[in-house]
Structures are given as C-alpha cells and as structure tokens.
C-alpha cells in the first residue's frame, strides 16, 4: 500500500521538474513512510511512496520491465499475483523482485489495458511506456484505492490524494458548488467528481490512457446485474457452500503479506465473521481492534468483548469520546478531502492510529458485506414501501416499517407523522431511484443553509437526473432490493465508505485495509443469488448468517444489525472544540467562504445550543457547514506545501536529456 503522484506532458516540451514531483510527494508521506522513488524523463515524472508489505527488501518503486521500456508506480495489492506470476514466467517474463507490482507490469506488457480484468485486488497504478510515449492509469473495480487527476497547462497531473495535485504551482484550489450540492444530498459526490473544482477522480472500474496528446477514460467493469433467468436456481444450502468456499478463498489470498495482518472487529456479523474465519482457518494468533462509545446507543462493546473471548484474539480498543471526535475532526477532514455530514470517519481515523502504534500495517475489515448481501435498513425499507405502494390505502402495510425503525417509531406522538413521511413518493415506485428518494429528499433539507450565491452557482443542475442518466440499461432488470443495492454500491460505498471511512482514514496512519467481501468473485456470485435469500422477509443478510452461523456465537448471528454511527453536535460544539468551531462558524468567516447564509447558520447554532436532543437534519447540517468551512481554510485559504517535511528519495531514475546516469541517492 502506497501513494503515487505523477505529471505527464501532453505534448513534448520542457522536461518535468524534479522539485515539483518531490513537492507532490511530501503531501502524502503518510501513505508511504518506508521508501520513496522517482522516475523522470522528458515527458513524465512519476513519484512513489512506499508502505512495504510484500518483498520488503527489493520492492522499491518505480519498477521496470526487462528492457526498461515500461515503468510502474503502484498503490495497492493484486492478491492473485502468485498465480499470475507463474503464468507470466511460463510465457517467458523475467522478474527481479518478488513483488506484486512487477507482476502487474509484466501482465500489462503481455495483455495491454485488458490486464486489469485479470487482477483480483485493490489498486491504483500508473504505467509509463517510454517507447510509445503512452501513460496508462487504472483503478480497481469498486474504488478501494483512490486516484485523482486534473488537466492543467498542457499536463495531466495525477495523485492518490488531491493535496498532491494542489502542490503543483498554478493549480486552482476551490470547492465546487455542484459537488457541494451532491454532498448535501447523497452524503458524498457522484463517481468521477471530487469536492474540488476541475479535480476529477478516476471512477471505480475505469482506466485512463494518455496517448499522442489525448486523454481517454474507459470503463472496464460494471457492478454486475443478472436478470431473473440468469440467477442461480439452487437450493439455499448449495448457495451457502459456494459463498463459504469463496469467502474463505477471498480471505486466504488477502492474508498474503510479508508482515502480520490484523482485523477490525465491531461486534457485528461481518467483521466478526471475517475474524472468526481467519482465527479458525489460518491464524489463531490474531490482533483485533475495535471502537467503543460512551453513549450506549452507539456502543457495541458487549458484542466485541464476546467475540474477543470467543476467538481469544489480542484486542485493543479506542474510546471515541466526544472530546476525541471533536479534537480530531479537522485532522480527519484533511485526509478525507471531502465535506462530511457525519462524524463517523473520525473514530476510524483514531483506530488506525492504534493499529499503527501496535506495529501493524494491514487489517482485514467486514466492509462491503452490507452492500453485497443486503444488510442495510434502506433495502428493507424499499421492500416494504414497494409492497405498500401496490395498495397505498392499506395503512397496515406501512406498519411493517416499525419493525425497521423501532427506535424512531417508539414515540407514539411521531408515529403517524413518520408513517405518512414514508408514504411520500409511494406513487413513484417505478422511478429508478424509488428506494433512495426519501433519504435523499430528507438530507437535501440541509441545503436551506446554502447562500444565495451558492444556490445560483449550482443553478438548475439536477443531481437526481445525473444519477438516472448514469444507470446502465440492464438496471431495469433488477428488483427493488437489487436496485437499492446498486445505488448504495455505486454512490455510498465507493465514494464515502471506502474513502472517508476507508482508505483515507486508514492510510492517514499508514494502515492498509483489505476487504474480503469486496472480492469481485463474491460480488459477482452474490449478484446471482436471488434477493429473497439475501433479505428473507425482513431478515437482513439471511444467507450470510447461514454461511457464518457455524463459526460464530448464536447471539452475534441473531443480533439486529446496528448501523455504525457516531455522535455529532456534542462533539463539535462543546469541550475543547468549541472555540475553534465558533471561530470557523462566525458570521465573518461564513461570509468570506461564501457557501452558506451567515444569518441562517447563526440561527442553527442558537437552536443546537439550546436543544436537548438535536434532530438528525440539524446535526448533519452542522457537520456539513463546519466541514466545508474547515476544508476551505485548509485547502483554499491557508494551503501550505511547506508544512510537510521534505522527501529524500531512496531512488531517482533520471532519463531526461542531458542526464545520463540513473542515480541512487
């Protein structure tokens, strides 16, 4: 796991400046503290920061092929590299390291861009062909590893994180109005966008080619969609066997590393299942890590403790107190590079710090199981609302929602309101976005705080329409649960969970996460499992519970899914954070940034300070406004490349005209 940066001139001309590449690299030192390397010629500059996990001795990058025409910088893992290497050796390729990086390079040499389809893993990489003068960038299927780029001044500039792109002199730094509109709707941006104007993210499952001055972006993988007749018509036990075998194999190859691999343990089904399979099948001496909350409604400590004593893992936990969340909110945003309507990424940022202190670099997590096997309430909500939509007058059908949202329905005073709230849009059950419109409309209420300038800048852009347009033709073949899963995977998983709650907060402390449930073979198999086995009645992840049942305590399998959440208002507006929040949110600062209406923000603050139980929307609005203000300060007003310590490259390959020797610093 690593960080990559690069500059490619679209037309030959002056060579790439070594200092600029170094400046880009120093911004993301956290991604690769172990080794650094640079490649330069008259057209490109590539920089690599390494977190050594495989081939600790010889894996320093950039890595080249036999005749040094191809050069690669690589962030990630191809877990099936052992098998791929064997095939490539048979085809005559010769290797000088035992790293997976070199395997990818030779696979590209052998198969061209299609090589990405052979990779099972999580990756973002760049390959430069100095003979044909072609640059190839690629990103893994679901977007576990990040890769950003922009076109500036006749150059393609790319990097694992946006802050490296901003380190190039002259690149404009500005939050993007349309992206803000999307974040205050979907909790994140849509694929391809970032929070910043003119800075793109290569979407998951895509590659990018630069050739003869043109840039081409191409999709190579699509979230799988199978029509009813293509689904697996097998007894549920046979399906369970297939899933179990594949899951064990997905874990097996994700334990490939030359350093120890630990695990995150929330006490929920997914992370407990992964930890149990690791401990039972591969490594009984497992290190696990968990998050605790003082507030009972957020805490899963009892279940974590149960799993720890059940598996006998060496467990460490952090207490995500309101002070800790408040203190680390700004630091977390620096790494996420996206406004947050939630604080849930912050405890994960702290958790990776504990992993790092424990001397570990790699952890397995249970992320992805909810999307793949149907774990979220929104899937069940969609199912109930569709059932209800067939007879909207049958209010009893809406009562089923009480099973899902017992907590909020418990108050008899709001129950009738809530029911009619979920009845909104029942007449739109044929809308492709039916499952998510209630949630997105609800979140959009936060936009009441937008300034008139921001509203004008967003203009008539319709983000729902942008989602509808991006859906493939086959989307219509999915049932209501399948559609909801698709939207959740495309938007929330790729652009929020794997980013703000995934790579960014883990790599902030040089920790690599590995996600067995997002092995593409499992995603594909699960897509062929009929929805009824995923959510049986209103029992979420039914089939996964059957698969994991034999290796877990009964209580862990039987417990209701508890969404991972963290408190907001008391973290951001009290304790040590109070003064800095007040400074960021005072009217002058709000007006200077220009995104929000200063008067409305003041009213929101007054209300939240007086509220005993702040509402969901007001809480999200606070987190959203404060995080925009902080990002504006960090990346626009006070962006400083000098604050990061300089990089002294372990290797510089300098092939610029006039520079003849490859230098080892």
């Amino acid at each position, binding site marked *: 796991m690593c960080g990559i940066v690069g500059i490619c001139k679209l037309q030959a001309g002056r060579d790439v400046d070594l200092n600029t590449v170094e400046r880009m690299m120093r911004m993301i030192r956290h991604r690769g503290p172990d080794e650094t390397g640079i490649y330069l010629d008259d057209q490109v500059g590539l920089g690599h920061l390494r977190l050594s996990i495989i081939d600790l001795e010889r894996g320093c990058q950039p890595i080249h092929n036999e005749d040094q025409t191809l050069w690669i910088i690589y962030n990630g893992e191809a877990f099936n590299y052992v098998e791929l290497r064997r095939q490539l050796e048979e085809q005559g390729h010769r290797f000088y390291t035992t790293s997976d990086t070199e395997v990818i390079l030779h696979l590209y040499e052998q198969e061209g861009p299609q090589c990405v389809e052979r990779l099972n893993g999580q990756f973002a990489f760049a390959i430069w062909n100095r003979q044909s003068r072609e640059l190839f960038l690629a990103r893994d299927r679901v977007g576990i590893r990040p890769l950003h780029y922009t076109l500036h001044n006749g150059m393609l500039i790319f990097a694992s994180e946006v802050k490296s792109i901003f380190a190039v002199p002259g690149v404009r730094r500005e939050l993007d109005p349309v992206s803000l509109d999307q974040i205050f709707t979907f909790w994140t941006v849509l694929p391809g966008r970032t929070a910043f104007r003119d800075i793109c993210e290569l979407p998951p499952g895509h590659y990018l080619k630069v050739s003869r001055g043109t840039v081409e972006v191409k999709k190579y993988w699509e979230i799988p969609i199978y029509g009813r007749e293509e689904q697996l018509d097998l007894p549920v036990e046979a399906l369970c066997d297939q899933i179990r075998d594949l899951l064990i194999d997905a874990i097996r190859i994700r334990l490939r590393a030359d350093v120890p691999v630990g695990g995150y343990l929330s006490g929920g089904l997914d992370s407990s299942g992964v930890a149990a399979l690791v401990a039972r099948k591969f490594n009984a001496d497992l290190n696990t890590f968990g998050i605790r909350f003082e507030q009972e409604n957020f805490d899963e400590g009892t279940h974590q403790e149960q799993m720890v004593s059940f598996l006998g893992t060496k467990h460490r936990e952090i207490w995500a107190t309101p002070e800790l969340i408040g203190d680390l909110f700004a630091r977390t945003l620096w790494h996420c590079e996206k406004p947050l309507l939630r604080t849930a990424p912050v405890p994960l940022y702290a958790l990776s710090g504990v992993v790092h202190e424990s001397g570990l670099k790699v952890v397995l997590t249970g992320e992805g199981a909810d999307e793949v096997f149907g774990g979220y309430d929104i899937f069940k909500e969609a199912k109930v609302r569709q059932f209800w939509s067939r007879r909207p007058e049958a209010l009893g059908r809406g009562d089923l929602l009480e099973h899902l949202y017992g907590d*909020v329905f418990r*108050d*008899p*005073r*709001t129950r*009738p*309101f*809530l029911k*009619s*709230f979920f009845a*909104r849009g029942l007449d739109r059950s044929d809308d492709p976005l039916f499952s998510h419109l209630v949630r997105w*409309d*609800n979140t*959009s*209420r936060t936009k*009441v*705080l937008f300034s008139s300038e921001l509203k004008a800048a967003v203009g008539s852009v319709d983000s729902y329409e942008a989602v509808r347009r991006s859906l493939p033709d086959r989307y219509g073949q999915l049932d209501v649960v399948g559609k909801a899963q698709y939207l959740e995977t495309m938007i929330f998983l790729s652009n929020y969970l794997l980013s703000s709650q995934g790579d960014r907060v883990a790599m902030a402390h040089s920790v690599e996460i590995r996600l067995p449930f997002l092995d593409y073979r499992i995603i594909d198999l699960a897509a062929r499992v009929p929805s009824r086995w995923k959510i049986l009645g209103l029992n979420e992840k039914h089939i996964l519970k059957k698969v994991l049942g034999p290796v877990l305590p009964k209580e862990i399998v039987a417990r209701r899914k508890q969404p991972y959440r963290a408190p907001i208002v008391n973290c951001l507006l009290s304790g040590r954070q109070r003064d800095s929040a007040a400074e960021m949110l005072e009217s002058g600062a709000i007006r200077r940034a220009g995104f929000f*209406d200063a*008067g*409305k*923000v003041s*009213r*929101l603050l007054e*209300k939240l300070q007086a509220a005993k*139980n*702040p*509402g*969901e*929307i*007001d809480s999200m609005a606070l987190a959203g406004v404060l995080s925009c203000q902080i990002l504006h300060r960090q990346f626009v007003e006070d962006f400083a490349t000098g604050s990061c310590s300089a990089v002294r490259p372990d290797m510089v390959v300098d092939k610029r005209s006039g520079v003849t020797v490859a230098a080892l610093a």
Partner: protein
Amino acid sequence: MNVQWEIKAYIVDNILFGDGERLEQDVSFQESGILDSTGFLELITFVEERFGIEITDSELIPENFDTLRKMSDFVERKMGARAVA
C-alpha cells in the same frame, strides 16, 4: 393574536432559519420537505406551550398538522374548546 402568523414565525425562525418564502398557508410540510420527525415534535411542543393546549396522540395526524392552515385551524378549535370548557 394571530395563531397562524405565530406558528409561521416559529417555523421560519427555527426550522427554515429565516427562509420563509416557500411557506404559503397551504403548502404541505411533508410534501415540501419542510419538516422531519424531530422538527414535527419541536413544532408540536411549541404549539402546546405557546397556546396552552394539550394535543392527544390520536390527534397527531397529518390531517391536523400538514399545512399552516390546517394547523392553525386545529389549534383554534382546541382553544375554542378549552374556552367553552
């Protein structure tokens, strides 16, 4: 005292943070996305305290509360009933 005006002022100040343009008297709170369940509870608590009425759980239905007009009509009925009692 104008009940509807006071309810509107409360919503504009506390829920819309000063943005009252959308709030015509027949705009549905739910359809227009003005209220969520917390906002709804805040509003009911305000109405009970400000106008000195008690609203039973069975009265908390959209027919009584979904627009400014419905809400003020309902509150005025309750106040009238209290005055008679």
